[in-house]
């Protein structure tokens, strides 16, 4: 049994209730921002912003559409962040949440580099910085309660539940309205599947979602990590393994912009 979220972008109104509910529950401070000619703010995820709405104006001839997409940790089924963590600060809970133990974190930022979605963020302003990211509101899950973002969503754009049930819902929705949805549940298969999945009416690459195949990245990361003892002294050596992942990610990203949707398996 594993929990998940289905984010149906066709229902999102960009109200950003989720963005603030996350800060409210997790007691995260506001960032200093400025208007860069867009509604989107803060400009990216950070140690203070674990989820946010990205705004996409998509022009199609004279027609314009405006799509809002919630970004944040996908709680991968096989999280490369956890595999990359040399001190075991990050781990996947049996219920699916990928969480971390701040006390163990040594601030090496391997997870940040390993994550295929660029999620973990470093507390740059802290004297003893840690990595921060969405915890799936683990303290709420422990109380049998849904994450703050899912609860606050007015339109049901964020649906929380059993991952399998959500997958069924998603498939049913696509089947019923093939005219409305692109035939793709983002996160069903990507990097071995993620707990947070998306439905959309516009192709995901137009929304800046990276294109990944079904192969979980961490499998390789894990091997690379286990090749050397996990001590701080060997961080530089480890970089080699991590570097491999990052390179692979960058390569895949560039393939995506070339219009290639399925990266070749077994590469590298």
């Amino acid at each position, binding site marked *: 049994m594993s929990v998940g979220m289905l984010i149906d972008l066709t*229902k999102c*109104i*960009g*109200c*950003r*209730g989720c*963005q*603030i*509910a996350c*800060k*409210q*529950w997790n007691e995260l*401070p*506001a*960032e*200093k*921002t*400025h*208007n*860069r*000619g*867009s*509604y989107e*703010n*803060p400009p990216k995820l950070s140690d203070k912003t674990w989820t946010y709405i990205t705004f996409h*104006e998509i*022009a199609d001839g004279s027609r*314009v*559409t*405006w*799509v*809002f997409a919630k970004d944040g940790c996908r709680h991968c089924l096989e999280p490369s962040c956890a595999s990359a963590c040399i001190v075991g600060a990050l781990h996947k809970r049996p219920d699916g949440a990928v969480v971390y133990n701040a006390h163990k974190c040594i601030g090496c930022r391997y997870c940040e580099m390993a994550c295929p979605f660029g999620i973990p963020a470093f507390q740059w302003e802290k004297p003893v910085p840690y990595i921060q990211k969405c915890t799936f509101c683990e303290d709420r899950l422990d*109380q*049998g*309660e*849904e994450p*703050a973002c899912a*609860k*606050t*969503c*007015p*339109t*049901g754009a964020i649906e929380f539940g059993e991952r399998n049930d959500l997958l069924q819902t998603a498939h049913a929705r696509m089947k019923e309205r093939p005219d409305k949805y692109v035939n793709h549940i983002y996160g069903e298969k990507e990097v071995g599947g993620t707990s947070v999945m998306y439905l959309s009416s516009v192709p995901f690459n137009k929304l800046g979602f990276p294109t990944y195949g079904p192969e979980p990245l961490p499998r390789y990361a894990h091997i690379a990590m286990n090749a050397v003892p996990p001590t701080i002294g060997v961080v530089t050596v480890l970089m080699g393994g991590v570097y491999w992942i990052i390179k692979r990610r960058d390569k895949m990203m560039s393939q995506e912009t070339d219009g290639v949707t399925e990266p070749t398996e077994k590469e590298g």
Partner: protein
Amino acid sequence: MKLTRRQFLKFGGATALLVSGRLPTPALAAPRPAKVRWTKETATICPYCAVGCGIIVGVANSKVVNTEGDPDHPINRGALCSKGSSVSQLANSRQRITKPMYRAPGSNKWKEVSWDWALDEIAKRVKETRDATWVEKDVKGRLARRTEGLASVGSAALDNEECSLLVKALRGLGVVYLEHQARICHSSTVAALAESFGRGAMTNHWIDIKNSDAILIMGSNAAEQHPISFHWVTKAIEHGATLISVDPRFTRTSSKAHIYAPMRAGADIALLGGMVKYILDNNLYHREYVVEHTNAPLLIDPKFKFSDGLFSGYNPSKRKYDKSTWAYQTDSNGVPLRDTSLQDPHCVFQLLRKHYSRYDVDTVSQITGTSKETLIKVYKDYAATGAPDKVGTIMYAMGWTQHTYGTQIIRASAIVQLLLGNIGRAGGGVNALRGESNVQGSTDHCLLFHILPGYLKTPRTSDETLDRYLKHYTPASSDPKSANWWQHYPEYAVSLLKWMYGKNATPENEFGYQLMPKIDDETNYSWLALFEAMYAGRIKGFFAWGQNPAVSGANANMARKAMENLDWMVAVNLWDTETSSFWQRPGVNPADVKTEVFLLPAAVSVEKEGSITNSGRWAQWRWKAVKPLGDSKPDSWIMNQLMIRVRKLYQADPGPDPEPVVKLAWNYGPGEVDTRQVAREVNGWAVGDVKDNKGNVIVPAGKQVKNFTQLRADGSTACANWLYSGSYNEDGNMMARRDNTDYHPASIGLYSKWSWAWPVNRRIIYNRASCNIKGEPFDPKRFVIRWNGKRWEGDVPDGGWPPGAKHSFIMKPEGYARIFGAGRADGPFPEHYEPWESPVKNILHPDQSTDPAFKIWKSEMDRKGDPKKYPIVGTTFRLTEHWQSGAMTRNLPWLVEMQPDMFVEMSPELAAEKGIKNGGKVIVESARGSIEAVALVTRRLQPFRLDGHLVHQVAMPWHWGYKGLTTGGSANVLTPPVGDANTMIPETKAFLCDVRKA
């Protein structure tokens, strides 16, 4: 016994349970277990928009530590938008003021003062100003008993009970310049909907949107301004409804629409007029409904005419109509004549057809800039709801209300809905989306110059006696089938006087009628007039309760300048706003400003107890979670302390006319006001034994009346607001009910035991029109009420008479909804006029381009822009992330983070023309002033081709000012000082400006 979550909650749940008699079913969402982080939970209602979402407040160590959506609340079901989600930051904000402050004349700083000192000083100034500016009689020697030297604005941010107290205090002092947010946000709604249907409020309610087949959102950006409404819009869409968004900008609402129609700001009547024509031309109207429930069959005086943009009876020098030809033909008994075949050339139906025959799609497209294809698509999809078993709803807000012809735009939508048979129906209605948590309540309590609580009329000096006053405002009908509900006016008015003056209101003294301030027949004291009077130096003392006119009023530079002419100002607020700090605004030397300013710290919603009324007319109780921050105090306490002091001063030194003040029934104790006691007064009670017409006592003295049917004109009852009668009766506080079961047999989502709705807990008003005259619902699947042979089932019917016994629109003297609305100042049918400032001539009648009946002000600050100098159409809007003048939201870091700067939206075409880059700084200028903003260049805006001219448009949020965590130009510096012909709501949604690189 298993402990339910409800038992865990400690917000006076006992009362709630007693009233509802049962435990609410936890069916709405998963129950939320107790968290370790806090030890106490209370229920409250969101203090921002008027969706009225429920919030649970978690408290630990007397501090708010968590706020999140109330999962039991039937409207939001645990959800909250970004503003609602940030309430914990509001409660704990360090930006709040927590001590009374004083700014001496010419001083450049605030000084902390004690409450006692501040209140004593203010009381002295109130008395001095009142006495110095007292008008005992008007020029004709009739009693006036008013002061024009004192003014008060605010507030929709007050609880109902506080509004009630404030009305009593201000009227008691003789204040006639008495206004608030409702004037500048939805006054035209009241004028249009009351004229069309009889009551001035949103006809249906939020949850009911789910029942619609077609949703037209126009003049509103509901997804951004009322995000939780989209819970219900989304439900409707999931059931197959079509969503149509008509807007000058492509908004977050448009992003969810099936049809988006771009339209030049201000061209709404043309677009809706085209829809009327389309419905009539294609026979898409709901004939049975139109014949039985509207005045379409009624015959109008043959002398009634319309030509060259003017209706019959126009007097250009007075800019006023003589409406004598806008009248029904009647039989010898005075009953209006009807032609149910709708063929008579003088019947309303035929006049309507003729009037809108000019609104063909080509013409409309030339005016609105919308393509013909899009217009037809909108018309076709929406008019499909004219089928008897289909229903459509219209959601609108300030995009409609804030025009010189705002009332008429809403009237046009009422006509569309009446033709399609969509009023009184589940999933139908003309739904005015109100933007402040209690603006419906503050409107109902009538913090407005022209009306008294419950929409009774403010006496005029010509209403010399109570008798004459009652005769003047009590309509008569000779039609035995007309319920003519306003025939009960005397019962409500006398009960109001009994509440005002208590024992001092007796049959011998006309129940204290002569103690009331009376306004001049011809003088308007509304918002724009108030600031004109202040600018002219006639107003000396000014109260701003939870309102920030330095940012929210049109032509803001004038409002700010006007404040410099005050002797003193009292600002009651959570924050030091642009209004309280007008003397230290940019470009002003404080030494030059002689106004004394008192800034009093108010408690925030979770720090007090009382009710607020959402847009759907639900009065919902809020419980107190924590003590007020620092030395801040509930507004009710402040009002009470002031009145106690002022009355003491009058006892010591009577001055010219102390009677109205000292005879006021002001008994709210020496300390905190018991708002439940006030709520009971609002409901009304028996002062003496209340008897039926056989002389039997139906309510013994001292008991609460059950509802307004027990109010009397003989002085045996007192009631602060007849509309709210039934909200707190002998059954308890009905507004505190929390039973979230939908008891309606067709599950249309009435939730009739959750809180309480006016009138008499009726959830969908005009519901008699949802049935034919046999009492059979037009749409049996989604019926609102139905006659079962003995009685009505479903919602509380709009009058309990059997079907056919009375006409369905009981608040109108003729008993029918008005397609022809003779009561409005600028015409019985809506006509397209251009805004006061427009880049184009009116192509329907170039010689009568603008509305003929609105007032034009003449001071040197009331400047009009020339289209040659200011060729761009400007409009204003709001954001999800900020609220109103921004006083609340620009002080909350989480919200500032999302929308940190003032900006202006424009099309890439305009930006290219002006060399403006996205994200760059620009200056926007109008004839009134200029502001700086960040350019947001977006394809969501587009230029329009209007009758051959290319017209550009820019749009700006109006949330910014010079105080708070983020500061920026106020859009209202640009907006014009003209208002609607009927209500003087300023025309802030369409004006002229220019834009250039900074």
